């Protein structure tokens, strides 16, 4: 099969015949487009591509992809995808999830998929709200959020998904947003090509229940001054003419500065490959929420053997050591005795 050239495909080859049923204006549409535009460029086959999701608005995603797919149960997509990816290393397995699905009910599975470094591309649509259940606050909603379930304001501190993924030993962590198709495509490409678990937080607008949650940073007008593009090996700076930058103080704390005040040489140079996740973590804490200058792009991309490869290596080693499994010998592996 590998000898046969991978057929050229276009976006429509990757779209299923299902009518897309997200609310008009939902940010999910542009994420779907970005994925469908990217896939023809990846040199992969439709039949070897699988999208697994849990429950929530984002979880409808697999139905719209003309690939193999499973719309599973709430929070469990990373666990199900782990079983698939580990037993079928030949497949390209994507997980599409939301903030409630992956950080609330399924937090445990996300953490462990990242820790194990299972070969999965995990796209987490973060809209900071429960959309499918019609507007309760989510584990990424800001404190004080007024929703149907929190009429007097939510009380719990939100998760920072990038910090969480880094803390869970993720080898690839990135952030993008639904208003920048090009940035999404490039970020998803990097995530797909990463040889291990990759986690991408996608800021996604829910125009019905949490409209404009990211407007302060990603609207056309705000973007230049509020989004900090991370580029490996380059000084971290932003603004229409690169007038803002990020520096690290003696204690390793990061600060947003004006480049003219500190000079270009003082700027922090991004290193996504640093073994120690400290820099990536500090960058993830630069903004306390999507109302302050916020880094986007790849925070961390380091290589560590993926779990499935390690599993297969043990299978090969076991076969080399003990010979391929033989059922009749296995049954006689303990003490045996015979009667005529």
């Amino acid at each position, binding site marked *: 099969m590998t000898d046969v050239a991978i057929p050229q495909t276009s976006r429509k080859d990757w779209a299923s015949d299902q009518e897309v049923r997200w609310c008009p204006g939902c940010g999910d549409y542009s994420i779907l487009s970005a994925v469908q535009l990217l896939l023809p460029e990846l040199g992969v086959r439709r039949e070897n591509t699988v999208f697994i999701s849990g429950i929530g608005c984002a979880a409808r995603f697999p139905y719209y992809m003309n690939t193999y797919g499973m719309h599973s149960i709430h929070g*469990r997509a990373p666990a199900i995808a782990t079983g698939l990816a580990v037993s079928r290393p030949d497949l390209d397995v994507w997980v599409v999830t939301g903030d409630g699905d992956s950080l609330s009910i399924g937090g445990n599975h996300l953490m462990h998929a990242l820790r194990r470094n299972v070969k999965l591309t995990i796209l987490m649509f973060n809209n900071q709200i429960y959309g499918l259940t019609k507007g309760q606050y989510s584990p990424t909603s800001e404190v004080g959020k007024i929703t149907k379930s929190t009429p007097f304001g939510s009380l719990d501190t939100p998760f920072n998904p990038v910090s969480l993924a880094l803390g869970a030993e993720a080898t690839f962590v990135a952030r993008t947003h639904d208003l920048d198709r090009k940035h999404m495509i490039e970020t998803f490409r990097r995530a797909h090509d990463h040889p291990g678990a990759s986690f991408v937080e996608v800021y996604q607008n829910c125009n019905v229940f949490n409209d404009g949650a990211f407007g302060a940073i990603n609207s056309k007008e705000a973007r230049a001054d509020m989004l900090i593009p991370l580029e490996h090996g380059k000084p971290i700076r932003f603004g229409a003419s690169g007038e803002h930058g990020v520096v690290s103080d003696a204690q390793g704390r990061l600060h947003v500065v004006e480049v003219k005040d500190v000079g270009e040489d003082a700027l922090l140079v991004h290193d996504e490959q640093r073994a120690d996740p400290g820099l990536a973590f500090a960058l993830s804490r630069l903004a306390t929420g999507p109302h302050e200058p916020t880094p986007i792009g790849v925070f961390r991309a380091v290589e560590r053997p993926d779990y499935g490869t390690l599993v297969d290596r043990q299978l090969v080693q076991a076969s080399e050591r003990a010979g391929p*499994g033989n059922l009749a010998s296995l049954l006689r592996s303990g003490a045996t005795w015979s009667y005529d």
Partner: protein
Amino acid sequence: MTTESKTQSEPGRVETIDQVVIRFAGDSGDGMQIAGDRFTDESALIGNDLSTFPNYPAEIRAPAGTLAGVSAFQIHISDHEILTPGDAPNVLVAMNPAALRANLADLPHGGILVINSDAFDERDLAKAGYTENPLNDGSLSAYRVYEIAMTSLTVEACKPAGAKPRDAERSKNFFALGLLSWLYHRPIVETEGWIAKRYGRVPLVVEANTLAFRAGYNLGETTEIFESSYEIAPAEHYPGTYTNVTGNVALAWGLLAAAHLAKLPLFLGSYPITPASDILHELSKHKNFGVRTLQAEDEIAGIGAALGAAFGGALGVTTTSGPGLDLKAETVGLAVSLELPLLIVDIQRGGPSTGLPTKTEQSDLLHAMFGRHGEAPVPIVAAKTPSHCFEAAIEAARIALRYRTPVYLLSDGYLANGSEPWRLPDVESLPDISVEFATETNATAADGEAAFWPYLRDPATLARPWAVPGTPGLEHRIGGLEKRDGSGAIAYEPGNHETMVHLRAAKIAGIAKDLAPVEADDPSGDARVLMLGWGSTFAAITAGVKRVRKSGRAVAQLHLVHVNPFPPNLGNVLRSYEVVVVPENNLGHLTRLVRSDFLVDAKVMSKVQGTPFRVGEIEKAIHEEIDRLEKQDVDRPDGPRARNGKESAL
């Protein structure tokens, strides 16, 4: 213990007996399970029939010397076919006061009591709750007591090895094993070889254990403590090769066999839980079979990963027990909706909640049957003996694969840890359970293009096609939402939902067409009472039925392996007996099912003590039922012999 030799015992005398039940009991740190396991292997080598029952506490190291920390291993060995580990021991080995106190009530008067007298000091007596030392107060006068200073004799024996006394003491289980090995003429060379292999990494331990083992053996040989020693001849066996297996090992091997017979890779997703973990351990040893074992982050991930692997074309399995079963319920429902093959192996233990983690129970049957939201039928296969776990695993896999359905395979703590000799099957004779993956499109889309409909069913089995990722042209999406019959597209129409609910139910019910009709074991054909069972009660029911028949009375027996769906003719069989009694280690799960399915007046015989039925309990219950029927005949000589009687059935 039946003594064939009736002559007066004299020192050095060897008596031949037909069977004996020995219970090794000590603190959970005393190594009683190891001693029992080794005694089992020695007995298997002789060719005795045997059955074992380990009984240990949930705490890994309960406070030493307390009743809570007592661990016991019972073994029944004989020169004829036996089925159970024995109702009561003939011999009790008690390594400390707590072991004596916790087990003495089970030892019949006249039984042999081998006691480690060194452990009966004031402190340990107090921990066991004794105010008087039972060795001195005459309370053991009804037994044949052998007080042996096992700890100090072990320490003394280990001196040449240079072990410190505190360390040397730990070998006293081998001292006890050596003594019992002498008493029952067990082979010892193999045990010495086993010690060398098992503890080979620590030469000092090998030497200490070997010295202690020999010292125990020699004590019996050279002193006149025991009036007799005992021989038990090999049992008659069907020709063949045998090995001794526990239920968990047989089940793990059954899973490997099932994958081999299905020509599929095996994937186990599991979270450690007692008493199921040994299946994970066993399968993890055999990676050369290509088995992938994932110790998941939780029970939910264990079954989720197994289901993901099944989507990819593997034989997906998850193993669990107790609370783990509850956690998996949601994913089982998804598997019902996805119609993918999946095995859920449940090693039942006492509940509710954490319950009795190390004790056996059969109280998950109704959970397996009904424990999901929505109409979500799932087949159930139940293993009946430790070695039968092998066959049951293959059968459960066969059903899962053929019908594309999750299947519950029920075992329990008694089967899992209990062992018995197993006549090894000829691997070549095992059934082919392989199924075909879909490779071709099977429908035409509205636009005239060839299409793949994931829910277009096989008319014979109602199973849907299993098309695995990687198959070109069959790309499709499945999910937990209701889908349209045939195309599998999301569909919420009321009529379609009703169709799908009935189709899923009919598919599972239709499995009965594959099952052989059952026949009650009723040699004389005169039985009025049928003993109906499922799972691990098989041994006790069978042995109880045999005893009743020996007494000249007729009783029938039927044991179910397929609990959902039932075998096709079960109702007729049940209706042909006046009384159906169902011994169950629960409050009546199977009883409820057969009553509701067949309107038969089945009655439960319940036991929920964390231990299996004793043969005597079954025997007594059967006699009582027959007595009751006979009394009824006398009271109403002209009355109908039975509402469900055979006459009326004719």
